[in-house]
């Protein structure tokens, strides 16, 4: 669903469209469950977060000032619901990703060790082991890096929206997104080097 599609959806919901209600519930239940599952790691918690978020959205939709802000508004509610479930903050990362650890070359190494990425990403849909490797790599990201990755790359929210939702600066979003991407690349590269693609 693109941003303009979300804006129209918000307008349709505020106008009482039954079709918009069904479309919204189906689309956002899936989005919110996936986001919450990746953040909470518990299926039951993720299911509850998705439902609680949808309920709050319908209870408070009339307070949404700008229909263009629908998606970031919803994900801010979801982030807060995740925090309540986990009783700890994603604002305070327990673990930082070091840029040095993510470099393809380490001191003293002369050659770049890199897998054959040629067949990707086209073969990814058929490669269940690769999907599991990506799942594992995402789960291994420290919380705030994973939160930034999910909002920016998966949900394709803007840097500004992700920063507002997470309560961090735009620069922090950019830095953490880059390191999250490098960490995912590194784990996928290790997977590909250990497998025949």
């Amino acid at each position, binding site marked *: 669903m693109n941003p303009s599609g979300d804006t129209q959806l918000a307008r349709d919901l505020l106008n009482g469209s039954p079709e918009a209600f069904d479309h919204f519930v189906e689309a956002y239940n899936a989005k919110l469950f996936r986001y919450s599952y990746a953040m909470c790691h518990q299926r039951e918690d993720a299911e509850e977060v998705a439902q609680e978020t949808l309920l709050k959205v*319908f209870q408070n939709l009339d307070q949404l000032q700008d229909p263009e802000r629908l998606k970031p508004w919803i994900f801010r509610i979801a982030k807060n619901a995740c925090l309540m479930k986990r009783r700890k903050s994603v604002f305070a990362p327990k673990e930082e990703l070091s840029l040095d650890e993510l470099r393809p070359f380490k001191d003293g190494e002369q050659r770049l060790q890199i897998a054959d*990425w040629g067949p990707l990403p086209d073969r990814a849909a058929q490669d269940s082991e*690769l999907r599991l490797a*990506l799942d594992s790599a*995402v789960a291994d990201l420290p919380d705030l890096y994973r939160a930034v990755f999910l909002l920016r790359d998966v949900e394709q929210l803007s840097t500004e929206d992700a920063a507002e939702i997470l309560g961090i600066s735009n620069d922090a979003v950019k830095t953490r997104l880059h390191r999250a991407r490098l960490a995912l690349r590194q784990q996928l590269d290790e997977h590909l080097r250990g497998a025949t693609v």
Partner: protein
Amino acid sequence: MNRDCSSIFALLSGYLDRDLPPVECAELEQHIQSCAPCVAFVDSLKKSVQLGKGYAPASDVPALAPETKQKLQEAYQRMLAARKP
């Protein structure tokens, strides 16, 4: 990794997102064009980002129970009723 490779390493997401100032972007492209390891690395990062954008957890999305959907519908109707003049 030589100095030039090191200096562009932190900028690659900005480059892929077209979020770099034009001068910095041109310098980075100039380096990449003459550096085979960077070509391979940028390609792998780009594909990794593409995979990441299609990411969905392995767990299936549970369907909403009819009573949950009914509860949402009731909250929606109450909200609509409350905003009518």
